[in-house]
């Protein structure tokens, strides 16, 4: 057991031995292993993130589309698209004649989503592309067109999807960072909440058994907890790779997560970031227009999404000053009851407790390790934002401690 902190921060300059060690100690899915390993090599070999001009993105985007289609296209009206804490986004109009170049001239508004050098959620554009395609028939999501998973054409891996119109924040409360603690207000909330629950139940019920979709996702085995363990180890690996300082409580909780991982009882597509702020809505109609941010999706247990949506990080107080609204929708127990009614089956309290701990552990990892490291290493176009949200990590750590004590009492 080594407890010495080397003079040079090995996490800032990860050598081959460090990379090999974390890969061996924390087995994860194949694609996750690739992107986490790529992150470490990028951090070591550089360059760090440098501002990318919109002209560079236009040129790379055109090259990618033309290579995919085999004929020329025109890109117009390109501009930056704000929103989110992790991806660099450009919206543009594509003038084309469809995929086979044989249709009438048409204009399609699209979005380029490109990752920066580092991120609060290091993720795979390939997986993001695959999961959106897999749910396109059942949920409102942006259409996905092309992916540059290995950065052949653009400075960093990217995908191109359709532009989804709608608001991420209500007009009366536009100031929340990335939708955290978003208050939709009573009228809009009453219309959005049933959709929030219903779409989640629909997602989880979507059966992909035997279908040739999402090839970059390792398929879990029903009755085994290996897929859950891989997720725990992915979080633990990020903690090992990115943390600025260690935290004894995280070591206690990791042992428990490994020792108590439940076997998978049913396979679901799990969004893994299902919460307020991650969907667009039509404010006048009160309708959810598009679910976004699929980059962390996994194949796993439905209880994971439910307990994530109920995390204190995404709550706010109701108008009565007493009730606490999960994801700005409804009290936590009401959310679980509504989901069970929509899904037509009861929830498992043991799994709810387990994933309640897991999600709190994960959020601590993302805030105290990934966000803090990405901003400290000048890894993104929004270092000041990631530095800001990393300060939330102590409240989440406190919440993890309290929740863990309750679950293990």
């Amino acid at each position, binding site marked *: 057991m080594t407890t010495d902190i080397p003079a040079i921060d090995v996490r800032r300059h990860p050598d081959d031995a460090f990379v090999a060690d974390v890969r061996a100690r924390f087995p994860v899915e194949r694609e996750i292993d690739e992107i986490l390993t790529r992150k470490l090599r990028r951090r070591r070999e550089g360059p760090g993130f440098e501002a990318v001009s919109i002209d560079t993105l236009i040129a790379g985007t055109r090259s990618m589309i033309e290579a995919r289609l085999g004929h020329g296209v025109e890109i117009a009206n390109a501009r930056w698209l*704000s929103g989110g804490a992790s991806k660099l986004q450009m919206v543009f109009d594509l003038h084309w004649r469809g995929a086979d170049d044989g249709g009438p001239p048409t204009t399609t508004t699209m979005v380029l989503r490109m990752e920066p050098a580092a991120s609060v959620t290091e993720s795979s554009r390939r997986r993001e592309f695959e999961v959106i395609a897999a749910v396109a028939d059942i949920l409102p999501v942006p259409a996905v067109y092309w992916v540059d998973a290995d950065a052949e054409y653009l400075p960093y891996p990217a995908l191109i999807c359709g532009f989804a119109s709608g608001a991420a924040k209500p007009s009366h409360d536009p100031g929340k960072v990335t939708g955290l603690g978003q208050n939709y207000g009573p009228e809009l909330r009453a219309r959005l909440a049933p959709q929030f629950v219903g779409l989640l139940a629909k997602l989880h019920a979507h059966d992909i058994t035997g279908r040739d979709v999402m090839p970059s996702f390792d398929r879990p085995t029903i009755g085994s907890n290996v897929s859950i363990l891989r997720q725990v180890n992915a979080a633990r690996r990020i903690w090992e790779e990115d943390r600025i300082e260690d935290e004894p*409580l995280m070591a206690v909780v990791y042992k428990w997560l490994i020792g108590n991982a439940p076997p998978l009882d049913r396979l679901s597509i799990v969004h893994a970031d299902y919460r307020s702020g991650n969907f667009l809505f039509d404010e006048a109609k009160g309708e959810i227009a598009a679910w976004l941010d699929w980059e962390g999706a996994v194949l796993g247990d439905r209880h994971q999404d439910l307990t994530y949506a109920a995390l204190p990080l995404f709550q706010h107080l109701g108008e009565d000053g007493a009730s606490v609204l999960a994801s700005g929708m409804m009290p936590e127990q009401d959310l679980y009851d509504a989901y069970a009614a929509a899904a037509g089956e009861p929830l498992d309290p043991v799994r709810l407790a387990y994933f309640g701990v897991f999600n709190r552990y994960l959020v601590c990892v993302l805030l105290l390790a990934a966000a803090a490291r990405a901003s400290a290493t000048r890894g993104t176009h929004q270092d000041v934002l990631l530095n800001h949200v990393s300060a939330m990590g102590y409240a989440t750590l406190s919440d993890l401690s309290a929740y863990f004590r309750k679950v293990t009492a």
Partner: protein
Amino acid sequence: MNQSFETELQVVLRALGEVVLPALDGAEKHVVEQLHLSMAALDFMRQRLPHAGRFYRGELTAYATHADAVADLIARHGGGVADLRAQAEAARTLLSSPTADWSDYVDATRRLRNVIACVVEGSAGAPYEADLDALVIATATDLHLQSRVWCQPFGFELKPETLPGATWIK
């Protein structure tokens, strides 16, 4: 010396808030957001810089005490505690040094956090594992609350009135 940290940050914050921000009316949303966040970071520094030495000294003292408690627990079961004792002793030496800077406290605290976490991770299956986990969880509560108090200027707390007082403000 007229140039105090507090005055430097105060004048920058006024310039950004009263001159630059109004001039950005109509600018792209992410530009305005980054300015707000930059001002929040500077204001955090303005509020916390005067207390940094006492805060980090208090944090180091707490972790040295925690390391002692962990070492005592493991020693009762006959386990090895040399690393823990050495880091705790180094912390006490630093705390008694009149030339120590708060960045020295930060480094020493990180060493203590690291050694305690490594001991916890290595305790799987040991006869003292459950007692050690319980000790870490019990101790974590107060340590994390003080970290939250330290970060309070960022405005994330749902019920800030429920937080304890700052132990570093005398």
